[in-house]
């Protein structure tokens, strides 16, 4: 019996007697012998609290955080500075829960920040209505697919290959449950191939999905992409990077039906991949098909401003199996960090940050393109991320280059070869305001040397020598 075990032997005996079974073995007798574990799990003996702490500390020390190296990793999650103000506000006990409450009107402050968050998301995306957030970017994309299915009942989705690979995978997984198929449209010179897009969309297509900027960092020309889809009665779902929307025209201005995205860049740290939040905004006509919870503004009996959870007839506790989603938990705490961050930046600050990102990204892009062997993977306009080709043979060669850079505490970015085999030597490089010009110069130097060393090694290997590692 350990202190963390909930039931004692005596508890177990009492439960067995209550249901009239002699032993635990008899309780599980219906499960075929072949499916049961023959021996107990090999978990080892328990550890003391001090031993567990020491073990976890040792494991944690193996991690490399973005504070331990100069990191140009992005690919959907970005290393922005998170001001202390955010921790100060989100750790207040009134807010410190990820749940939207079941007796919500008692927590007016919680509902008010949700309402303000929704207002900020609507302004940022140019959409009419926003929910109080969903789990993260990819599930927001998949949930947008379900909205489209409810809206027009068609059978197919068309997805640009510029949409984040995780989001495409999540959409394929979830939409199989309601009988949809998904087809993909390739990129051409870094952006969605307009001709292929046009021929992929027919009268069976429920929704099309495009990312702005796309996974390769390129700014998509939304107008023709949206136009072709709307002509054929398909809904348009745009997954947007919220931090670029201070500069780019909001997706709502192009007439998209749903604008979703990953909220992490807004005041949430990387935290080894999560938790974060997804934002979800749509046009008023689709409001009743929206997933998740929605805070609404109203007045009380005395005419004072107040907040409620509204349009709850969409939700599972009322609509049961026909609910617009089967999650009603928002990532309220992460979304709160998002709205605090936006308030901290302010309207002008968001634009200034965007301009700074564009300038530093342009500097890094041209400096890297000048490195011997390195070339741009596309020349489309970008905001904060871009793709290069390292002029190497395959993904393995890219990984060796990255290991060389890691030894000098530089992480040049994310290899594209994992998700885009058509770009085996591609590298996605992200810039945030935390990367100075000196950091970028360091990247150019370290990556340039690593690529040269790899090419020299590969040359030696093809000449019959040992492959360099």
């Amino acid at each position, binding site marked *: 019996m350990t202190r963390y075990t909930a039931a004692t032997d005596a508890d177990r005996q009492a439960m067995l007697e209550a249901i009239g079974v002699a032993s635990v073995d008899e309780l599980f007798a219906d499960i075929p012998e072949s499916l049961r574990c023959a021996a107990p799990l090999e978990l080892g003996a328990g550890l003391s609290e001090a031993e567990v702490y020491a073990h976890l500390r040792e494991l944690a020390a193996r991690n490399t955080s973005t504070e331990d190296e100069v990191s140009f990793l992005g690919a959907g999650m970005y290393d922005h500075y998170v001001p202390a103000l955010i921790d100060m506000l989100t750790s207040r006990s009134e807010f410190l829960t990820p749940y939207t409450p079941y007796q919500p009107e008692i927590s007016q402050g919680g509902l008010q920040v949700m309402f303000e968050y929704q207002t900020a998301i609507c302004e940022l995306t140019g959409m009419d209505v926003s929910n109080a957030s969903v789990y993260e970017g990819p599930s927001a994309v998949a949930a947008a697919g379900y909205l489209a299915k409810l809206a027009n009942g068609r059978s197919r989705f068309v997805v640009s290959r510029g949409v984040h690979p995780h989001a495409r995978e999540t959409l394929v997984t979830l939409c199989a449950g309601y009988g949809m198929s998904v087809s993909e449209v390739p990129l051409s010179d870094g952006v969605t191939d307009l001709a292929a897009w046009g021929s992929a969309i027919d009268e069976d297509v429920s929704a099309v999905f495009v990312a702005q900027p796309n996974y390769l960092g390129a700014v998509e020309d939304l107008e023709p992409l949206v136009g072709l889809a709307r002509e054929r009665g398909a809904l348009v779902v745009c997954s947007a990077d919220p931090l670029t929307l201070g500069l780019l025209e909001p997706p709502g201005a192009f007439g998209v039906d749903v604008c979703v995205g990953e909220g992490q860049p807004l005041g949430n740290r990387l935290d080894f991949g999560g938790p974060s939040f997804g934002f979800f905004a749509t046009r008023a006509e689709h409001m*009743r098909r929206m997933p998740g919870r929605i805070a609404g503004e109203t007045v009380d009996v005395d005419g004072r401003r107040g907040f409620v959870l509204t349009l709850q*007839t969409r939700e599972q506790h*009322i*609509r049961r199996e*026909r609910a617009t989603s089967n999650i009603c938990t928002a990532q309220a705490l992460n979304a709160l960090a998002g709205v605090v961050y936006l308030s901290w930046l302010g309207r002008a600050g968001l634009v200034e940050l965007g301009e700074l990102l564009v300038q530093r990204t342009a500097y890094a892009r041209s400096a890297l393109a000048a490195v011997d062997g390195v070339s741009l993977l596309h020349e489309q306009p970008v905001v904060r991320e871009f793709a290069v080709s390292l002029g190497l043979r395959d993904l393995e060669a890219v990984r060796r280059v990255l290991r060389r850079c890691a030894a000098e505490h530089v992480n040049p970015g994310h290899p594209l070869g994992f998700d885009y085999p058509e770009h085996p030597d591609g590298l996605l490089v992200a810039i945030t305001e935390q990367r100075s010009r000196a950091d970028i110069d360091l990247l150019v130097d370290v990556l340039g040397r690593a690529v040269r060393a790899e090419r020299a090694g590969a040359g030696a290997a093809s000449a019959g020598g040992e492959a360099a590692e």
Partner: protein
Amino acid sequence: MAEASYPPELLYHPEHDWARVEGEVATFGITWHAQDALGEIVFVETPAVGTQLSANEAYTEVESVKAVSDVFAPLTGEVIETNAQLAAKPELINEDPYGEGWLVKVRIADASEAGGLLNRDAYVATLDE
């Protein structure tokens, strides 16, 4: 309409829907009992003109402040007109369920189906059960 009422000239479906048959065309709506059970109706989205409805199958939903409920087609047919007023004034269903609160007009596919519906007394009897 505060008092229960079930006009004798209508045909009724046990899922609390009514049909007014006039030649080849029938008008559909929900009964006094249905709107009373739902409470204040806040939203209804009628199907597009041209939609084919099948008898005994749900063709739309009405949403009240506390619930969402399916609306069943009493007869098979094609929608030829919808009540455009309901988008802005869904409360017409509460105020006048057999008049201004009608939902759709349908060109009936098979007039003999009407024989399967309930008359006023038979429908009211189901409410007492």
